[in-house]
């Protein structure tokens, strides 16, 4: 016979109350675990996508001119013809400290060319790098070879050209290999050719107008990488395209704060459930506590019985809450994860935190009922004496 046995037997006897307390704690813990798992998985997923998709560093020639474009409206003064970068200089990017964080480098040469009496902007690019830099591209037709050209949706419409048609650019005949589906970006206005082809058309062999870099930026300091590239290419201006990343991360941070707020409220309610139920249980056990006190249990023994009961339920709630939370996170990711695999790995750190959270909440919420039980006057508790 031990105090632990008394606690266990009492829990077994009052299964309904124990289940109620368990449910209150499980809901609280599962909510916290679910939200943390969901947010972590989503953050990881976004970071992973950001790592894989799109350029986030831009290398352009250094210029003293100010941009004369605003909101897509150009007022002249385009400066890309002033001072191009040597294509060969891009090799230097492989030797920067964070070179392993570079997923792709896309050199681009730009020029204005006349086509059927209209002036269009032509871009020579590395189509292999474009696969990483512009994953949102969908081409109707195929990618161009050295005698081909890929038209943006708007350019094809304005020039009234489609796949298989030919156009003459600076006395070179190029075949339209494909048309880009509308992207909603400036790419819709352009004609894309292979880098070498465009360099020949513009008479700029070995020169590029700019380069896009996809950096794996989850764990890398993008500002540092910008600094490192600037040092490697002193004649170029290097900029980080952080707006999208930042806005996504800020949105996620806001969601995180909101979720933690909700979790806090649910935990508070869970704590209240434990408090009220334990108090009811203590009141129901007045006689029993009176007997314990009469036969020589100290106040600390009574408190230990109550805390043991709370500890057993809380421990169980921590374990159940963790797995339920993980399950909820998986279900939420499957439903709202937009392509997320729904896989949430077992996280021993989070499991331990869930257990500690449940125990802390359960024990804190039981402190008052335990003190109330311990303060009970045995003489009043046992009215017969």
């Amino acid at each position, binding site marked *: *016979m031990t*105090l632990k046995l008394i606690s266990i037997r009492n829990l077994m*006897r009052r299964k309904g109350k124990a289940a109620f307390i368990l449910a209150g704690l499980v809901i609280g813990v599962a909510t916290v675990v679910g939200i943390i798992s969901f947010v972590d998985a989503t953050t990881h997923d976004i970071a992973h996508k950001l790592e894989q998709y799109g350029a986030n560093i831009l290398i352009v020639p250094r210029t003293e001119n100010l941009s004369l474009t605003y909101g897509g409206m150009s007022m002249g003064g385009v400066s890309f013809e002033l001072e191009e970068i040597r294509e060969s200089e891009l090799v230097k990017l492989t030797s920067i400290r964070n070179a392993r964080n570079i997923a792709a480098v896309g050199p681009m040469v730009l020029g204005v060319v006349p086509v059927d009496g209209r002036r269009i902007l032509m871009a020579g690019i590395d189509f292999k790098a474009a696969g990483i830099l512009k994953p949102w591209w969908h081409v109707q037709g195929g990618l161009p070879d050295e005698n081909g050209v890929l038209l943006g949706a708007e350019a094809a419409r304005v020039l009234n050209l489609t796949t298989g048609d030919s156009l003459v650019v600076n006395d070179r005949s190029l075949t339209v290999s494909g048309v880009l589906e509308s992207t909603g970006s400036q790419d819709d206005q352009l004609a894309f050719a292979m880098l070498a082809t465009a360099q020949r058309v513009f008479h700029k062999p070995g020169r590029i107008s700019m380069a896009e870099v996809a950096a794996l930026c989850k764990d890398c300091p993008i500002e540092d990488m910008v600094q490192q590239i600037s040092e490697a290419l002193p004649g170029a201006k290097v900029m980080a395209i952080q707006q999208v990343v930042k806005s996504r991360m800020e949105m996620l941070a806001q969601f995180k704060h909101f979720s933690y707020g909700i979790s806090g409220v649910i935990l508070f309610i869970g704590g209240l459930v434990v408090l009220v139920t334990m108090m009811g249980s203590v009141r129901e056990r007045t006689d029993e506590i009176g*007997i314990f006190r009469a*036969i*020589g*249990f*100290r106040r600390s023994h009574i408190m230990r019985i109550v805390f043991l009961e709370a500890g057993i339920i809380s421990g169980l709630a921590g374990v159940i809450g963790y797995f339920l939370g993980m399950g909820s996170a998986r279900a939420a990711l499957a439903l709202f994860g937009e392509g997320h695999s729904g896989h949430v790995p077992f996280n021993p750190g989070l499991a331990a935190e869930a257990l500690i959270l449940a125990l802390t909440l359960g024990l804190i919420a039981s402190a008052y009922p335990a003190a109330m039980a311990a303060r009970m006057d045995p*003489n009043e508790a046992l009215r017969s*004496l």
Partner: protein
Amino acid sequence: MSYIIAESLEKTFGNGGAAVNAVSGISFNIAPGEFVGVMGESGAGKSTLLGMLGAMNAPSSGRLRVDGIDVYGLKQEQRADFRREYLGFVFQSFHLVAYLTVIENVMLPLAVTRRAGKQKRAMALEALSQVGLADKADRLPGEISGGEKERVAVARAIVNEPPVLLADEPTGNLDSRNSREIMNMFQRLNATGMTIIMVTHSPECAGYARRILQMSDGRLVGDGTPADKN
């Protein structure tokens, strides 16, 4: 030589004009091994006095000494230890813990002692043997009769071999046959040297005691043998 010394014990409930003296300046001595019955009409203060003797109800004034210990000079937790070491309680309505088996109920006073589990069980079985219930050790209180419950309560009271047994109307809920069994049991325990103080309404039960304290309106109005009362 006195084992229990009550000096001018007084217990007042309420304040000012609403104050009620449940026990008014009672003094008596009890020698070790005595079997004392406390009698009196309802409201005479018997249970209040037993509560004070049981270290559970601090007197408004006066002093209680047991085995030389000033009981109410002890701190709360020390008084709990005192109850565990010196006193055994038998209540009128059994007060068994419903979710514990008979033997677990008997082992309760041992739950907070540093004895090995096997020793606790052996002591509880020995106490149950003394009250003739060793064969019902693993039953729940709901599965035994009223008389058996009272005997379990006695076994629980004596399991740690306290020098003093306090009983409050121990046969109040029992028929005459079970009452006799309990009283015979008390006599056997008393014969081993255990001091017994029993509150009772019943003259038959009081007849088993060797000394009767008669109370009325919170005062001690008689102190003699059962024969004196008759």
